[in-house]
């Protein structure tokens, strides 16, 4: 999918750089520092820019990596190459522990929580005897290959940049996969991702660990590059700087992390070496200017520099070629139960407000049931009870004979229930294809490592083929490679339907699918829904367009103020006095 040659070109340029005659050795040191920072920033891109989890603690994970190898290689004489996996494991384990505590924090608590433990860890590094307190550990052995001891900046340069480029490639692969789509959906909130079977808690922990391991790798390299460690580079200021690097470069882009590292580190270096020449050696002028430039950059380019630069570069992302002859395994054709969905006295109270008041109805196979009612009648809340976004206060809801009490939204998706949302929940910066492929999440199997190493391609091709088929089915073939956010609201609703179809559902829940559609589009939608029903699917839909509902639905359930006031065929509902009263007021 992504073109390979820019990366190969970049790798060749980086490999050739130290061979340029008379390149100042200092530049190589600078490039090493850029590489080290880029690794951490890349983790933050995944964590913060893509996953939406802001962390102030990345430098602490560098500390875990650096101290692990420092202690083992000095006090115990373990070979630095052996400490590499250990350093990564220690940072990863630290991330598991800290992640379990902090990742489930919601909203602003998460960054604040990371700030707290990162401060705590910084002081801990400075106080613990076996890591040398504030003096740290020195005389760390250099990396060696055979007789080649990497003592100078020019030799470890290659190790650092191989690590950077390798990490960038693996991370790009990861994001462009089934697991990656789950991660990229996190930022738009957990509800939509979970409705399609993504275990969001696990996905969050995964990116948290991934970012920590990259930071740990950077720490390991740092320890063997400088051959001494102290607590200072692992403190909060450093963590904030990494975050800053990611934001300046472009927090949503892997190469933004690398670019951000270049900008920030070169800028700091220039400020440190030239400002004293201009203003005399007074004070921490570079700190002031750095701070001011930071504020100015955020004002001028809140989205980062990479997206702007990438727009100027000649190579464009090529849309993926999809072989639509591939097929995912369909849901095993078992005999459907006589009742697909059954609500018995379902109730939801928010404090004193009864949003859904002991509602009972059912949906049978091959049936289109419409749920209608004035605004605030409890229709969307009913959807949320069925899909387990909300806990019911009392009553019983069964899907295909399974009581949903105590299940998760992912399990509901597994049972074959797919839904769309009243307020569209697509990832705006993913293409239509990628958004729809998220719907097939549960039908793929490839995990994190397979995705990173591109062992997932066969599985992935089937997922994308299925997504393409569903997009063609709903008539959005021409928009397949556009970003979802660039579509009209009506089209976005249709994309949501395609995504739901990717689940291969037995029951489709549609929340106001026709809102924002033009007359012709509504007719096409109605035709599609009828076709789906005739193919064996059941549909429960909430809709305000009465013409659309009356034409389409086999049965209608009417809610008013949370209570079911009527149920029947469209014709009986049209003439039901209670329904007329609810919609038009008592005088009618």
């Amino acid at each position: 999918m992504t073109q390979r040659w820019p990366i190969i070109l970049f790798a060749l340029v980086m490999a050739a750089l130290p061979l340029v005659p008379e390149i100042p050795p200092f530049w190589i040191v600078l490039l090493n520092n850029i590489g080290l920072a880029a690794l951490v920033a890349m983790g933050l891109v995944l964590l913060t820019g893509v996953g939406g989890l802001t962390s102030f603690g990345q430098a602490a994970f560098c500390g875990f990596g650096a101290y692990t190898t420092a202690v083992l290689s000095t006090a115990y004489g373990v070979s630095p190459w052996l400490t590499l996996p250990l350093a990564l494991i220690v940072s990863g384990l630290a991330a598991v522990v800290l992640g379990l505590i902090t990742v489930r924090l919601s909203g602003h608590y998460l960054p604040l929580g990371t700030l707290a433990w990162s401060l705590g860890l910084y002081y801990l590094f400075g106080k613990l005897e076996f890591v040398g307190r504030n003096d740290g550990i020195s005389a760390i052995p250099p990396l060696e290959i055979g007789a080649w001891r990497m003592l100078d900046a020019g030799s470890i340069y290659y190790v650092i940049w191989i690590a950077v480029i390798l990490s960038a490639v693996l991370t790009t692969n990861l994001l462009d996969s089934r697991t990656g789509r789950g991660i990229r959906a996190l930022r738009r909130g957990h509800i939509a991702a979970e409705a399609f079977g993504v275990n969001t808690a696990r996905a969050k922990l995964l990116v948290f660990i991934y970012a920590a391991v990259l930071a740990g790798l950077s720490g390991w390299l740092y320890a063997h590059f400088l051959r001494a460690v102290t607590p200072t580079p692992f403190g909060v200021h450093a963590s904030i700087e990494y975050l800053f690097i990611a934001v300046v470069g472009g927090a949503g882009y892997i190469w933004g992390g690398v670019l951000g590292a270049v900008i920030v580190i070169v800028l700091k270096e220039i400020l440190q070496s030239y400002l004293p020449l201009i203003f005399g050696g007074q004070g921490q002028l570079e700190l002031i200017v750095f701070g001011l430039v930071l504020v100015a950059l955020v004002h001028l380019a809140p989205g980062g520099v990479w997206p702007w630069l990438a727009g100027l570069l000649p190579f464009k992302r090529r849309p993926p070629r999809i072989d639509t002859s591939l097929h995912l395994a369909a849901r095993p054709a078992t005999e459907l139960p006589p009742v697909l969905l059954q609500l018995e006295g379902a109730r939801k109270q928010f404090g004193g407000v009864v949003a859904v008041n002991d509602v009972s109805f059912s949906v049978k196979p091959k049936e289109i049931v419409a749920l209608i009612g004035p605004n605030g009648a409890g229709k969307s809340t009913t959807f949320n009870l069925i899909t387990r976004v909300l806990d019911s206060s009392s009553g019983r809801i069964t899907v295909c004979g399974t009581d949903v009490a105590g299940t998760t939204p992912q399990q509901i998706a597994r049972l074959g229930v797919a839904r769309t949302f009243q307020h569209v929940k697509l990832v705006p910066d993913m293409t239509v294809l990628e958004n729809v492929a998220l719907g097939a999440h549960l039908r793929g199997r490839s995990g994190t490592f397979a995705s990173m190493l591109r062992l997932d391609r066969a599985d992935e091709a089937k997922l994308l083929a299925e997504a393409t088929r569903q997009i063609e089915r709903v008539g959005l073939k021409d928009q397949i490679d556009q970003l979802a956010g660039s579509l009209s609201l009506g089209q976005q609703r249709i994309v949501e339907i395609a995504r739901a179809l990717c689940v291969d559902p037995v029951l489709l829940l549609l929340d106001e699918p026709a809102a924002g559609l033009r007359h012709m589009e509504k007719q096409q939608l109605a035709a599609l829904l009828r076709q789906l029903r005739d193919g064996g699917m059941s549909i429960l839909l909430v809709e305000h367009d009465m013409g659309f509902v009356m034409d389409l639905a086999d049965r209608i359930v009417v809610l008013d103020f949370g209570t079911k006031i009527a149920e029947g065929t469209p014709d009986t509902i049209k003439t039901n006095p209670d329904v007329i009263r609810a919609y038009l007021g008592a005088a009618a």
Partner: protein
Amino acid sequence: MLEGGPALNTTILLFLLQDGITNGAVYALLGLAMVLVFAVTRVILIPQGEFVAYGALTYATLATGQIPGTAMLAVVMGLVAFAFDLFAARKAFRPKVILRAVAVDIVFPVVVLALTWGLAGRTNAIPVNIALSLLIVAAIGLFLYRIAFQPIAHTSVLVLLIASVGAHLALEGFGLIFFGAEGLRGPAISNAMITIGQLQITGQSLAVYGITIALIVALWLFFDFTLYGKALRATAVNRLGARLVGIRTSLSGQMAFLLASVIGAISGILIVPITTLYYDTGFIVGLKGFVAAIIGGLISYPITAAAAIVVGLVEAFSSFYASNYKEVIVFTLIIPVLVLRSLAAPDVEEEKE
């Protein structure tokens, strides 16, 4: 690694309690200011520490009869803010707007600088120095919002935070230039000493308690009983809604920063007679206020105040039992609180855009 240390007796206990509550009171003020600023502007106010240091060191410098560099900084920032105001008003040039900008951005800091110039070099009464310090820091706080945050008020919390970090770095650098790397101490507000049995209470501690309580009550009265206070709260709840009913949210932001900088400066002035403050001490003091603010969930004033006292006490007692691990303990204190909070208030997904 815990030290055996001396046994806890009544004298030490009372001393630790007093120390903890005094520090806690200061943290409470800072925590309240952070809650205020976050609620109104969504900015996590990292430069709060600089307000503390600027207040304290300006006051201490004035007490030595010199002119603090912060007074000049206020004028320069005012000029920049004026340029921003002019730029913002370029499409609709209304005399009233320009006059306000001149008055707030130029006349106000220049008058403060003139006053400082006129009064410095003499031994002023302490209240005069306090008033001058507060005016200077208030001007800096106000202009900081105008320059660094008002133009990007609509962006994400993360972007605001990065700007906040930038402001912190720049202000800290200026602090080093103005006040040097040496620490300063200021004269106490009160040298009185009251002895009750084994308990010795300094007048300074009493001043800390009194002013903290007075400020908390004042904030409460302000937010609950004045139109401006209600406007600030409305902005905090819903920016768009507040604008629709005619509240100028940029003004709310300026007000929040003004209040926060004054509160920060007061905290600094209160502690500078007790401990030596350096140009960069404010950061860590501010962070402890921040811990209290987080425990209060960045929403609740009473919980923040109570949490701040707890932070002060934990700090005092851990410096007695495990002084090496004082900071570790203080900063990890909030993790269990955060976990409890997020368990108690499960993730509610807000509809964005």
